[in-house]
């Protein structure tokens, strides 16, 4: 039985999942032979390989173009009409897969393209600080902030910062400028 004729959506859905894990989410190590034996055991290896390559190519094209549902339908329809393309059953499985995984795949692609550290977490507390036993007690509150930073695929780095009230307000002012910029950007027609 040729790979193109094997149906029931489950094996193809499983295949697409495995491809997404490897290509987008950074979890390689799922071998071709493992996939074939688990999902398409009746398909010979020499037939499975081009089938896998075809599915990988289709998934990459869809993700790369960040296709919306109209584009997806047009693209998949074209694939069903091609010589050596896909069946309409396969198109339906791929369509359903992309609709449910699009957001997660896109997020992975965004993470992969960020070569700086990303902000993974932020914790903070405010301490009251008292000084000097020998003169009037000075009560100076201090904010202690811990930033968790990390590059794609690497361990986190923690940066611990101390701010007094003046500094906190300076930062707040800067952040409001950033927000203004964002608002301007978003309100521009593109």
């Amino acid at each position: 039985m040729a790979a193109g004729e094997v149906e029931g959506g489950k094996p193809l859905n499983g295949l697409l999942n495995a491809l997404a894990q490897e290509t987008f989410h950074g979890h390689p190590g799922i071998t071709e032979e493992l996939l074939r034996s688990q999902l398409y055991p009746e398909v010979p290896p020499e037939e499975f390989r081009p089938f896998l390559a075809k599915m990988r190519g289709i998934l990459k094209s869809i993700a790369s173009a960040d296709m919306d549902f109209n584009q997806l339908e047009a693209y998949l329809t074209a694939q069903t009409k091609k010589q050596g393309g896909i069946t309409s059953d396969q198109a339906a499985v791929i369509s359903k897969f992309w609709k449910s995984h699009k957001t997660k795949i896109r997020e992975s692609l965004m993470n992969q393209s960020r070569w700086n550290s990303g902000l993974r977490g932020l914790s903070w507390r405010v301490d009251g600080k008292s000084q000097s036993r020998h003169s009037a007690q000075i009560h100076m509150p201090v904010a202690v902030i811990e930033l968790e930073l990390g590059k794609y695929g690497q361990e986190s780095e923690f940066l611990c910062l101390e701010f007094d009230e003046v500094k906190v307000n300076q930062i707040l002012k800067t952040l409001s400028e950033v927000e203004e910029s964002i608002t301007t950007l978003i309100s521009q027609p593109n």
Partner: protein
Amino acid sequence: ALIRRRLFKARNTLVDFQWKLGMAVSSDTCRSLKYPYVAVMLKVADHSGQVKTKCFEMTIPQFQNFYRQFKEIAAVIETV
């Protein structure tokens, strides 16, 4: 906020905060990225006065959360 062991580590003070708003358009793995991001460059000084640079990026939702947390910090520090 939770008090964690790491918060007792060496603390740095912020010397400078620079930012830019960028738009990722396209990459080798994704021709249609199109997402805005905030890139930040911090200059921080440790207790010995040595200055280091730290860069990182935030998506817009991450930035909004960052901003919201700073507003909370400001509100708390005002009342202490």
